[in-house]
């Protein structure tokens, strides 16, 4: 029995997604990709802000009026979010989603300048209280796991493939990628990194046989105000989007960590390149003026 390549493309979490892997038979491939798909859909149903029946929507609907029971997985995600909040000095904040109300990213303009200060008062992860069983969110505040769950899903699904005996493959959800084993002939998987200055083109390909590649950037969603281009990544302290960094790509063992590092780096604004360098991981940072700080190694083996 030989290994054959299977390529499953689908749409989830508002993005194009893909599983590419080698399996022994179409039946095995079908079986495991169905499980993986169900896992992505489960996480989307549970954590999407855009679904009224999600756990996150229920928590946000109850803001200021009650406590909502949470499970162990949600508690663990909140704990991880707390770690991000601490590591970033309060910049990475899963309650900062309300700030987006002041901006219209569809139209690329500021909607309500006067609202920014008011919105800032409704942000602050340290005002959320939770324990192993339930969570309380103050009135006016809302949780948004958008910056965590997609990456978490990538890692979880990669683990699922491995648990089912798939040893060569990759998982990609909306541009965030986790490779769990080189191709059967030993070759790494070529991963294309987009050029933030010209998003339709490839900046370069990197070779990955184990590890994750995550990117954050203003490719499509940005606003222009007084001649300054702002990304969609919002600084909870100022209420304004960041403007010094156009995009960041980080390579790490886990997609979740790579994704959090790209977001924190964007929020570090002008300090992003120095902070990324200190993390000792391969990265690419595209500054607002189009300059590239390229620390991607030609071959990456984590």
């Amino acid at each position, binding site marked *: 029995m030989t290994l054959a390549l299977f390529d499953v493309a689908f749409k989830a979490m508002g993005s194009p997604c893909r599983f590419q892997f080698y399996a022994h038979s179409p*039946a095995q491939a079908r079986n495991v990709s169905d499980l993986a798909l169900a896992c992505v859909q489960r996480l989307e149903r549970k954590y999407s802000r855009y679904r009224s029946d999600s756990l996150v929507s229920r928590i946000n609907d109850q803001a200021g009026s009650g406590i909502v029971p949470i499970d162990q997985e949600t508690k663990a995600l909140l704990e991880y979010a707390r770690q991000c909040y601490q590591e970033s000095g309060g910049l990475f904040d899963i309650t900062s989603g309300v700030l987006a109300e002041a901006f219209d990213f569809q139209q690329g303009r500021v909607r309500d300048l006067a609202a920014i200060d008011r919105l800032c008062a409704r942000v602050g992860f340290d005002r959320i209280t939770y324990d192993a069983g339930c969570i309380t969110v103050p009135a006016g505040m809302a949780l948004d796991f958008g910056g965590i769950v997609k990456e978490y899903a990538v890692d979880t699904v990669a*683990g699922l493939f*491995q648990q089912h005996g798939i040893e060569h493959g990759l998982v990609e959800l909306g541009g965030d990628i986790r490779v769990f084993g080189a191709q059967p002939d*030993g070759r790494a998987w070529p991963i294309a990194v987009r050029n933030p200055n010209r998003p339709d083109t490839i900046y370069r390909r990197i070779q990955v046989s184990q590890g994750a590649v995550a990117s954050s950037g203003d490719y499509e969603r940005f606003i222009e105000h007084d001649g300054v281009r702002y990304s969609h990544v919002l600084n909870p302290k100022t209420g304004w989007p960041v403007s010094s960094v156009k995009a960041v790509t980080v390579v790490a063992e*886990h997609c979740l960590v790579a994704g959090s*590092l790209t977001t924190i780096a964007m929020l570090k604004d002008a300090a992003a390149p120095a902070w990324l360098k200190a993390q000792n991981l391969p990265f690419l940072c595209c500054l607002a003026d189009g300059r590239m700080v390229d620390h991607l190694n030609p071959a990456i083996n984590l």
Partner: protein
Amino acid sequence: MVAVEAVVAVTKRVTAAARLSAAALALPGLMPSAEAGRVEESYQADFQYGHYAESDQRMSVDIYQLHGAVPIGEAMTVSANLVRDVVSGASPMFNIKQRDGKPGQVLTGASIRDQRDAASGSLSYAFDPVTATLGGGYSAEDDYISRYVTGQLSYEFNHKLSTLTLAGSVAFDQIEPTGLNLKENKSNQQYLLGWSQVIDKNTLLKLNATFGYQEGFLSDPYKSVFFDGRGLLADTRPTRRYQWAWLGQLVRYFKPLNQAAWHLDYRFYTDSWDIDSHTLEMSWHQPLFEGWMLVPRLRYYSQNQAEFYQAFFSADDSVNRFSSDYRMAGFGALSGGVKLTREWLAPGSLDSLKLQVGFDYYDRKAAYQLAGDNAGDFADYHAYTVTASVQVRF
């Protein structure tokens, strides 16, 4: 001041990325798949046949083994084992003093045939992060009955990178040797404390310490001892034995070599009969292609003799404990073997099917002993074992 700066430098080197990676490992989807044995998730059945044969048409054993494991709910697994050994051939009975003054072996007749049947079962229950296992067994042959119970607790911590294991077993045996008017008992207790640690993603370290205590009739009723000028006396050993052993095992994975793994084990054993032994074992687990795996193995063993051992005794030796059993002698042994496995994942409606064949060669020589307090090469022999097994998971 210098020290303070050094501390600052060290803490600085732990990056935010490293701390986030550690935090990420606490998430349910990202937990590292632990090496240590988890409760089976699927039904499993194994059948193994083995044939062991000693040189010079001495003892040979046919071994038939059936094993099954059944999951009950998410947390429990019941497993059962049936074994039948059929022993035939001659075995050493005693040594005599030859005309040249050197010892020579006297064997039993070749017609001995003995069958041992054993059944055992266990139940394990995982209430994360602890797994508890309780088991017991019964084995019977014409002249020997053994009953035992075992218990084990293992505790996983440190994001499942560390496992602590506590285990104990107690056995009660009855011996009624054929042709002798004798009915004896013995008991055997064994305790184990083990620690296994995932050091990094390519390295696993296991350490364990065991303590054993045996009491009762510990002699071999089929062995005799030659006293030159007096004749034969029955093998007579102490009625108590304390045993201690320490084992260290290192497993190292080599990703670039198709996930090959190198196992290195060292065991030191000592007991109250003054036997010390050293065992060094190495094996290489090489996945080949399409589910094939090759495992070559090498092992060296050395022990010194028990304080009451002599190849034979003289009439005026005034001893009250004495044995000439070759297993109580000082000797060394080299063994090596190879196993070849082919595994099919998801064939038909099964989860997996695994076939395995193995060959082992064992060479025992007094001359292989580390520090030579041996009684000569008269008890040297070699043996081989072939095994074949099939395993299905469904």
